[in-house]
């Protein structure tokens, strides 16, 4: 969906906008001159900040914030600003907080002075202030306060107000970054928050979870179904995190089960009926009911106005579901192309990736990928690729459209676009043999163009096509050879000459190769270097064929392998690409003795034969090459000369020169990056980001082996579990903890087994209490009334709890539960 700002700008007439722009520019200038923003003397600013009047302080703070954003030095005001943290004015407080977040790291000692006040705010009456305080406290990057932050989060987890609980969830990753040692505590908080009944909190908890410990899926099991239910209601950013989590979770927990199904029942596997009339069977992925829950919950997100969510759903379907699911996401993916240019670009990467695996559902949308003149290169490149991928799957009408589209762009003026479209034609031909004749005709038409660039590209592609099916292309080669008269592009000429050489051996009575060589020899001096190299090669090939024909009766023995080693450097390549086979593997046996004798014997024979035009031509070309300015050509000529020095032994030369060439296959440009996860930046960056993706990239995990997955019963939700905490089904590790606790409880005198704080010390490293902790705890006591209904879930944490509080607390809890329900009613 287009952003509102864009649509608004369309609605407002241009005149209005410019008028207003001028106006506001004027007013801004006035504003600047009236209040000398930049020139305010430091002393005066300090005075403003020190003032008792809120208005002045606010004014001063605004100045400081402005300086901060302009990256002007304003560290000198640190103490003056921080002093105002205790102000009763919310706006002042906020601005101080903003300043504090930015500079606390550079002035840790002074920043610590403010912690106390902020901590007091944690128990403010106004929940918004509590949330804000928690957010700021956790954002101060001073590691020594990590324990205080952790305690603050703990308190926030139990807050009645969802904003505070959400702030607590969001504070968890910050606390983790501050001090990774707090992880065990943080995971406990997460466990509480993930189970929060409010999607507003649970969503934030998932975001925190993905940041802190994305692989601890054991925490997710019992919240899985709850999270899926809340998914639709969450805000878009939480949805993103949840969908990311679910790909990982599902791969780790739902093994891929296959089932043989009667073919005609393929569509029924969602329901229960399985037809049994047909004998054909098919393997089908069987969905776990929990996985199906997820996939169905995703469906309504496809209509989200956030493009990232749509891609995330597509990712879920792509990696988790049977292939049919992705079809539902195709339409919404296409609708992303309506968005702004940047979103379109990234969406196209993902579409290409899906297209490579499952092109069919995209076929009906093929007209969406036609290229507009306004598309920037990075967009048309991807569009062309999609067109070529879809090409074999289209009907005749669309095929015709795509080809004429490509033809149109191959005649354009943009070099890059021309090259890419010609290559696309080649890929179309290669993937769809039925139309390859038509593609070839299209390309041959281009060969006579005046645009050398286009000719060269076309020829390279034609060469690839011919190599795929040489037998049927003899006439094509003849036609190409005719073009040698007019073609001036070096690469184009080289390509043609190479092709002629490849075909030199076919139909010896009626071959043009020798004649082409004769004509080329005349203009050898004026040829570009690439063409010269190919002429020398052509001469060698023609000569070898000639020798082979002559010496048909004399079967020269096998060639010495040292020779082939020395010469086998792949230099016979036409355009420097690596399509040549390795001749080394084909040399078999060594028999220098025999070689010598035969050579001596055959030599006079050939000489006597003498002066066949091909031999003369060969000598002439060698002579020309010998005195060429390019050492590369001289070198090559010398190589062929020695290779063919002995007319009787052409075996080695044949191996080297006439080796069958492998059929080149041009992969789709995105083929190499299709393994990157959908929606990741690595997919968009491609090979530049490295083989394993960018830093922080994680591929989707492999499916868990059947039998090793966590028990499905773990996902069973027990509603009482959220409150009672005792009957809940837990992981094995938690069960152990539980056991240890109950043991401790039975030995100790704890009334409530969930609250036996003392015994827990055996399970985890006991924390050394700092003075701050004690202080914080004192405050805790005063604030217990704030704590929410999840208090009991925290029981495992309870080492700091005082037993005496319990009774009082339980009463409180009842109250809180009620009020919580009231919230729910309001929500509903």
């Amino acid at each position, binding site marked *: 969906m287009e952003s509102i700002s864009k649509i608004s700008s*369309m609605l407002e007439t241009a005149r209005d906008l410019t008028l207003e722009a001028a106006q506001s520019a004027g007013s801004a200038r006035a504003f600047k001159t009236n209040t000398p923003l930049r020139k305010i003397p430091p002393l005066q600013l300090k005075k403003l900040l020190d003032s008792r009047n809120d208005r002045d302080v606010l004014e001063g703070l605004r100045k400081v914030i402005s300086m901060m954003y302009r990256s002007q030095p304003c560290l000198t005001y640190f103490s003056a600003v921080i002093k105002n943290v205790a102000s009763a004015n919310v706006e002042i407080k906020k601005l101080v907080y903003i300043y504090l977040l930015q500079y606390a790291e550079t002035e840790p000692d002074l920043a610590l002075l403010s912690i106390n006040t902020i901590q007091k705010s944690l128990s403010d009456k106004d929940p918004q202030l509590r949330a804000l305080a928690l957010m700021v406290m956790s954002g101060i990057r001073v590691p020594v306060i990590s324990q205080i932050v952790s305690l603050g989060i703990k308190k926030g987890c139990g807050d009645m107000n969802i904003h505070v609980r959400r702030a607590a969830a969001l504070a968890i990753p910050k606390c983790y970054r501050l001090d990774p040692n707090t992880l065990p505590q943080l995971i406990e908080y997460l466990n509480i928050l993930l189970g929060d009944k409010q999607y507003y909190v649970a969503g934030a908890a998932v975001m925190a979870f993905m940041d802190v410990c994305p692989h601890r899926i054991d925490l997710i099991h019992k919240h899985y179904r709850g999270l899926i239910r809340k998914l639709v209601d969450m805000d878009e950013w939480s949805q993103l995190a949840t969908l990311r989590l679910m790909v990982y979770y599902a791969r780790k927990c739902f093994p891929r089960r296959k089932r043989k199904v009667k073919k005609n029942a393929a569509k029924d596997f969602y329901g229960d009926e399985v037809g049994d009339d047909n004998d054909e069977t098919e393997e089908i992925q069987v969905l776990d009911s929990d996985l199906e829950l997820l996939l169905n919950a995703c469906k309504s997100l496809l209509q989200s106005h956030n493009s990232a969510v749509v891609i995330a759903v597509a990712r879920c379907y792509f990696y988790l579901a049977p292939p049919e699911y992705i079809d539902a996401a195709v339409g*919404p993916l296409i609708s992303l192309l309506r968005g702004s240019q*940047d979103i379109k670009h990234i969406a196209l990467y993902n579409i290409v990736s899906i297209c490579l695996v499952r092109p069919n559902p995209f076929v009906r949308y093929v007209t969406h990928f036609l290229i507009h003149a306004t598309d920037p290169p990075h967009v048309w490149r991807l569009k062309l690729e999609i067109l070529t991928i879809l090409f074999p799957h289209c009907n005749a009408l669309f095929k015709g459209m795509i080809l004429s589209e490509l033809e149109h762009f191959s005649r354009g003026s943009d070099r890059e676009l021309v090259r890419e479209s010609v290559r696309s034609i080649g890929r179309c031909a290669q993937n769809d043999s039925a139309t390859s004749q038509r593609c070839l005709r299209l390309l041959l038409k281009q060969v006579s163009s005046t645009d050398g660039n286009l000719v060269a590209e076309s020829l390279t592609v034609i060469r690839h096509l011919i190599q795929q099916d040489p037998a049927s292309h003899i006439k094509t080669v003849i036609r190409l050879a005719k073009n040698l008269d007019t073609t001036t592009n070096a690469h184009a000429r080289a390509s043609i000459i190479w092709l002629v050489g490849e075909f030199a051996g076919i139909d010896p009575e009626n071959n043009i190769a020798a004649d082409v060589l004769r004509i080329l020899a005349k203009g050898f001096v004026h040829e570009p270097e690439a063409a010269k190299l190919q002429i020398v090669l052509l001469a060698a090939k023609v000569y070898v064929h000639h020798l082979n024909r002559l010496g048909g009766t004399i079967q020269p023995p096998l060639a010495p392998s040292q020779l082939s080693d020395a010469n086998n450097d792949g230099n016979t390549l036409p355009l420097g690409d690596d399509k040549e086979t390795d001749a080394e593997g084909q040399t078999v046996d060594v028999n220098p003795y025999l070689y010598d004798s035969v050579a001596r014997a055959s030599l006079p024979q050939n000489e006597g034969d003498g002066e066949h035009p091909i031999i003369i031509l060969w000598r002439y070309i060698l002579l020309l090459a010998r005195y060429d300015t390019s050492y590369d050509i001289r070198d090559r000529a010398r190589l062929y000369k020695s290779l063919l020095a002995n007319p009787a032994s052409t075996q080695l030369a044949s191996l080297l020169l006439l080796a069958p060439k492998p059929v080149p296959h041009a992969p789709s440009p995105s083929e190499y990056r299709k393994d990157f996860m959908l929606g990741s930046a690595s997919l968009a960056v491609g090979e530049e980001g490295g083989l394993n993706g960018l830093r922080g990239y994680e591929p989707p995990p492999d499916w868990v082996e059947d039998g090793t997955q966590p028990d499905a019963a773990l996902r069973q939700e027990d509603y009482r579990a959220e409150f009672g905490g005792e009957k809940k089904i837990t992981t094995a590790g938690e069960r152990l903890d539980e056991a240890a606790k109950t043991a401790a409880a039975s030995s100790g005198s704890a009334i409530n087994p969930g609250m036996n704080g003392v015994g827990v010390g055996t399970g985890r490293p006991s924390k050394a209490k700092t003075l701050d902790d004690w202080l914080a705890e004192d405050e805790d006591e005063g604030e217990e009334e704030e704590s929410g209904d999840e208090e009991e879930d925290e029981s495992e944490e309870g080492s700091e709890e005082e037993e005496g509080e319990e009774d009082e607390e339980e009463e409180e809890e009842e109250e809180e539960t009620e009020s919580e329900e009231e919230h729910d009613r309001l929500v509903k």
Partner: protein
Amino acid sequence: MSGGIEAVYIFDQHNNPILEHVYYSRPLAARDILPLYLAHPEPRPPLIYLPNTNPPTLVFSLIHDQLLFISPASVDTEPLLVLEFLHRVVDVLEEFLGAPLLASKIEGAYDVVAQLFLEMCDAGTVCNTEPNALRDFVDVPGWVGKLLGGVGLPVSSPALGSSSGSLSLQRQHGLAPSSTSTPALPWRRSNVRHTSNEIYVDIVETLSVILAPSGRPLSAFANGSIACTAKVSGVPDLLLTLTAPGGKAGLDKTLELPVFHPCVRLARWREQPGVLSFVPPDGRFMLAGYEVDLLPNTTGKGMNSASSLHLPASVEMKTSLGLNGADFEARLLLSTNFPSSATAGSLGAGARGGGISSRLGNSSPAFGGSSNQPLLEAIVVTIPIPSSVRNLTDLRASRGEAHYSPGDKAVEWRVSAKEAVLPNGTGGATLRCTVVGPLSEDDDNDLDSGFRLTADTVDYNEDTYQTSSLANATDNAASSKQNEQRDLRRIQLNKTLMPSSAAVSFTVKGWLPSGIRVDSLVINTRTSKGLGEGVKPYKGVKYLTVSKQGVETRC
């Protein structure tokens, strides 16, 4: 892939940094990123990878109203997450500072901007991007508040006094409304009050059409957006009904791939396509987006009665004209006989027309009558010129003005619709120009042909192998042939200098190519809260068709 927003930098039109907000970790500073970003040749993709920085950085960028927004990331981050966030930043800043977004506005209200940035993203985790929810958290001080009011954005009710004052008062007493109630509707701020209750609906369709050289359309889409401005007190529950030619089935077929604001109840839509039931956010928002295939027959999705494509403006191109083939001609075809405009008049006239004109009183009074007769405006023909063209001479336009200066990428030809459209609703204009190619071509000519002519004329028959005898033409025959060839060659050369496409931009007010109309917009009084009796806030609907170089003709 679990990265977040590390920082947001904003640069003004001269690429001076005007805002740096770092969220977490230590990303490259704005001044370090900018030259690396600018080093990338234009047009710059939205995601650039800088492998040689420390740490290697992904640069996400967005340009809006000449302001450049950049967000760096040092780990693999979902690109769309970052880009969507940047779009939201733009939206939110526009909402709070007023559109268009200008550097001076940001610089003048750093304190507001700072609070917004603080709320929108918490240490890299995007958390709150709904403008309505932000309004609950961020105070807008006096003069920006005035600015907000000035551009027509609601700033609470004037009856309550200035918004910031009352809000902060409430907060100090711990009575802030948002704090006690859970956000039942995350997108709607609490306690909305307006003295005059108004709702406006704007439907904008952006054309994207490609025509083959023959004039046959290859693809034709209209991308529709339904924008809504709701200034209604309380919690109104609205029901918007859309109609399209062809009745219910027609609507289902016309309106494809819809996308909705989270406030829209999807279930209702699925039951009854065309019915949008929602509780709107306060202020301006995008209600829905959709797409219309204007050529339903070609894609094989069944027949549709309204299959003929009507374009208010299109171009016809003729290239390689004149003696040397160096001229080209563009013919602009206009037609304002809109197929559905008759119904538009009968439906849209009356009360709605009044609403529209009163609303647009500040912009252009001519607009008021638009519901009666669609108005074609702002016609610009853009013809991209290949980079090898040195200059265009003889720009002869029968109407309007055409501009090209050497080095430009395209000819811009502006035509006034008033002049060009005849009373019968059709009209047109032509533009003819001559292309001047690069200087060196003619000199090259001889060199090239030199090679060609020294080689013997060889003719291979495709079936048999024969060599024709050597060229036996006499000298003078050769020279005349040479001249002929040179002419031919020149025409061929000029062919490469011809434009390969042309596009028209225009706007039509009061008409939509899809024929979609708003049938009714009613408030469900049973489920709405806090709205007085008998309030009929629906004020009007505006239809607009836009083509931003969207009607493209190949040639």
